[in-house]
């Protein structure tokens, strides 16, 4: 039982990190019909800029805020100057965002060097609690709490605010939203900025979780995020959190019980979902 709880907490923490990356990806796809392969680059840039600020200032909180701001700025720049010119052209989108992913990764090496950088957990989040026989690592609990808080905040934004209503409407019918007098381009930028900020937050949180950050981390996590987006249903925000938890848990349990299959498990999970529910667990039928 103790092992099950520990594995579940590990899985949840990983799931939340993937969720932070996948949520923006799925919102951007749902609203803007853009499959942004560069999203992982924003995740990695969040990690590097956040850890750099954290190391420089000694404040983990300022590091987190810095990562989010850096991610948002990079997101706006990416949307305005890289992705906007190729709206509506999927082939160009794939090529340009894949290219941007490589550029973003290489730029990290230019700025911070090619070697991986260590990232430490702040003192107040180090260590663990013992609840009975179960050891709860504080930083993992923190990631889970942050992940759920972000989920609730974005849900609130989507369900209870006018801008959220516009985003949900825009996912369904962009033309109609514009015909109602709403500037969809501004909504696109807002969603991209939120998605990029979430990705950067995820990257920053991953640093102390894994102990190191490296330039290719964006690509590695982006693959998991794409799996989550497909399983959850492309464009479905709720789907992305459920699928991220599923992928996180499956990764955690498989790594413990069947380590040889750990990497293949998520792909198999995605294949099974695609066979029985091609639109994903929470996606609308296309």
């Amino acid at each position, binding site marked *: 039982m103790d092992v099950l709880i520990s594995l579940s907490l590990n899985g949840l923490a990983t799931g939340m990190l993937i969720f932070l990356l996948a949520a923006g990806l799925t919102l951007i796809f749902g609203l803007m019909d853009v499959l942004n392969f560069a999203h992982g680059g924003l995740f990695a840039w969040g990690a590097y800029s956040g850890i750099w600020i954290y190391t420089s200032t000694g404040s983990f909180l300022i590091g987190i805020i810095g990562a989010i701001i850096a991610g948002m700025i990079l997101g706006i720049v990416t949307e305005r100057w890289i992705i906007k010119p190729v709206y509506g052209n999927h082939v160009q989108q794939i090529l340009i965002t894949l290219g941007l992913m490589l550029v973003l990764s290489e730029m990290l090496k230019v700025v911070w060097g090619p070697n991986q950088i260590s990232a430490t957990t702040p003192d107040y989040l180090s260590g663990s609690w013992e609840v009975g026989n179960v050891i709860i690592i504080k930083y993992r609990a923190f990631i889970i709490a942050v992940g759920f808080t972000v989920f609730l905040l974005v849900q609130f934004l989507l369900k209870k605010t006018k801008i959220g209503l*516009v985003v949900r409407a825009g996912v369904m019918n962009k033309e109609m939203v514009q015909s109602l007098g709403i500037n969809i381009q501004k909504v696109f930028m807002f969603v991209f900025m939120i998605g990029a900020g979430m990705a950067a937050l995820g990257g920053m949180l991953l640093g102390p979780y894994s102990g190191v950050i490296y330039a290719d981390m964006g690509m590695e996590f982006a693959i998991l995020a794409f799996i989550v987006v497909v399983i959850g249903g492309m464009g479905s925000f709720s789907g992305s959190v459920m699928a991220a938890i599923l992928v996180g848990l499956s990764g955690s349990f498989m790594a413990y019980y069947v380590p040889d299959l750990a990497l293949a498990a998520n792909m198999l999970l995605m294949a099974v979902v695609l066979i029985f529910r091609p639109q994903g667990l929470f996606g609308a039928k296309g």
Partner: protein
Amino acid sequence: MSTLLKLDQVETFIGQYHILQGVSFEVPKGEVTVLLGRNGAGKTTTLRTIMGLNQASKGSIQYKGGEIKGLATYSIANQGIGYVPEDQGIFADLTVEENIKVAVKKENDETRQRLDWILNLFPDLKKFWKKPGGLLSGGQKQMLAIARAYVNDNELLLIDEPSKGLAPIVVEKVMESIQQMKEKTTIILVEQNFMMASTIGDSFYIIDDGRTVSNGSMNILRDDEEMRRKYLGIA
């Protein structure tokens, strides 16, 4: 009567297809102008071009004396033009309330009065207020689409085939609502149902192969069987 909207030799391409090849008409303020024509004549494209959803390649579109050709759709809508598309454009996962709310530009007493008025006209919308728009019947969706366009203080409404696919009793209801709205706003109505068009419309323009080929008072068309047969395929 002053002219609210004027199209002059408007041409529009969709991809490589030259859909509108010279559409010209004027919409007098306070009237219902009906666009008639066979399927594929270019009526829907005309409305979409006015809204900026399809960009005109040539010609001029003047609204209240100012050029709106080339403006973004949201900018055109914000000048006071409401649009009810052929497919109604309902946000399926949003409730009736949310569908209306997303459209509201200013939450003030006037908007509330307009909403009350339209909800009294369409009590079904009040009944299904919390129901997702996608679960409404075809007629209810049409009512919602009209309500959404009407809730703001739009001076001009573009309504595309409101009777399409609806049962006769629902068509009557929709027709009644447009009749009542015409007292408060100017309307361009695209309609295949000649009975409905002739009852509501004040004047007509016939579009054929992407060009306006005839126009006049609706009374003229009612009496001109040959013109109806030639351009509309009805006697």
